[in-house]
């Protein structure tokens, strides 16, 4: 079982962040939430490891 990696791990963060925030352009806030929810589900499935997912869920609940 592995731990959640909280060190920087994305090759080009500025490219990524622009793609991520462009998801919300010209949408209502609720429509953006739907996209973000789908994104969380896709990435969670990719990670797969329950311990890692639980660690991430704990962080967002506690911060």
């Amino acid at each position, binding site marked *: 079982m592995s731990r959640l990696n*909280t060190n920087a791990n*994305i090759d080009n963060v*500025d490219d990524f*962040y622009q793609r*991520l*925030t462009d998801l*919300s352009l010209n*949408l209502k*806030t609720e429509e953006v939430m739907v996209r973000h929810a789908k994104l969380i589900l896709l990435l969670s499935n990719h990670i797969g490891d329950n311990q890692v997912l639980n660690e991430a869920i704990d962080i967002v609940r506690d911060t």
Partner: protein
Amino acid sequence: MLNSYQATPFAYIAYADQTAAHPVTHPVVIIGAGPIGLAAAVDFSIKGVPVVVIDDNNTVSIGSRAVCYAKRFLDISDRLGLGERLIDKGVTWNLGKVFFENEQIFSFDMLSEKQQRRPGFINLQQYYLEQYYVERLQEFDSASLRWKNKLIDISQDENVATLTIETPDGTYQINAQYVLACDGANSATRKLCHLESKGQVFQDRFLIADIVMSNNSFPSERWFWFNPPFHPGSSTLLHRQPDNMWRIDFDLGWDADPEEEKKPQNIIPRIKAFLGDEVEFELEWSSVYTFCCRRMQNFRHQRIFFAGDSAHQVSPFGARGANSGIEDIDNLVWKLNLALKGQASEALLNSYSEERVLAANENILNSTRSTDFITPKNASNKIMRDAVLSLAKSYQFARPLVNSGRLSVPPVLRNCRMISADTASFKTQIEPGSPCIDAPVTLSIDLDVTTQPFLLSQLGEQFQLLLFIEDPCELTAQLLAELQQLSELAQPIHSFMISHENLPLTLPSNITHLIDHSGLIQKRLDANCGCCYLLRPDQIIAGRTRQFSKQTIINMQSRALGAL
């Protein structure tokens, strides 16, 4: 009128050109005596080209303009003979700190590789920079700096451009083989040529306040606050400048009334909320500004070359205005110098626009992204932004996502036609199309130097070869003969032989021996014995090879000149 700086107006002088029967032809006319036009004029003067600089005003620019000058700006200013003066007056800084609400969330260092001649940044008021460049230009008798000379018309044919200029004594015409339009964001030259600079206008307003305060506890660092208690819901930026002057930049939002916000009775409470009631300060200068990111499609218009803000504009976050402008003229002047000697191909002249458009695109992209992070485009992106900030304090991964300005570093001229791509693998951040990195050196000739010499300070105005040698046996008679042949090309290549130890050698005068005592040049360029780097006159790496070969070097130079 400023309390801390008195600008002496420059005298208008009438020149013989104004009463000539026919327009006199000059090799180069530069429009605009701002930082970029002046730097270009000094660069031409160093290369022995007489220049005429015209400016519609008669003083240096007053008020808050550019502040932050990056390492590459300083390296170029060194080549132009002004680096030391800028360093002496400027406030040196390398560290940036980012705060969210009450807390510092992280810091970053703008000079990750230490032991270079120049720091990551200095801060300096633009009027000092312009004053020093004017004084530097006045050292050259061949340079003619004409104040109160306003461009009112420009045309060109296959031989010359003709400029119509208005002065207090009436109008006159001069011809120029080449024109540099360094006349800023509202370039008159661009309008007279019916050319456009297109892009994006941002719906946000910022307040700049320059204040003088002597008693304070801020260090010489760049401090940026997201949502600080003293300016809730917005951002604030603080920079230290010389003469106890501080630049404060408050984000006001699009709905702010610029006329109201400009009033001292509205500015002073904002500053007091920031600094505390007990801190004494004088408000020196203020303005409310908006900005845009845009560029011209092509920076060359036949004989007219656009450089600096006339060609491209960015938001201030990232300090990419003046810093990219000086890179423009660094790129352009050596090419025009060859053109004036009849030694430049059309491809070489066109490469200016190709290379600097690529750089402008990178600068615009970075400065647009910073602006979008600082003032998110919608509520969802603001939530995302604030989530990044709140995670960044405890979780390292979020810190690189925080974008308070990606500060100016020179864009790499990647995949440009004049740059020879690698044919071997190099394990270094430096690549063809980058400016050469700096490192300390020891000179084999024992000159009377009291300060540490550095690699970049040794470079000259021509093409140069860095050749790494460890074993004197490598230095064969054939190699020396081939280096001699390189120094006799139409565009001479001067060789620098770099070794870790001092070698007991007597070298011909066309080879300079540099001792890389710290091993840092070798390390930073991932060089092996026999490895070569070919540098253009602007210190950009034209190509590199792991094994010296005269023909390879000649091919690289031919490509760099647009002849391949």
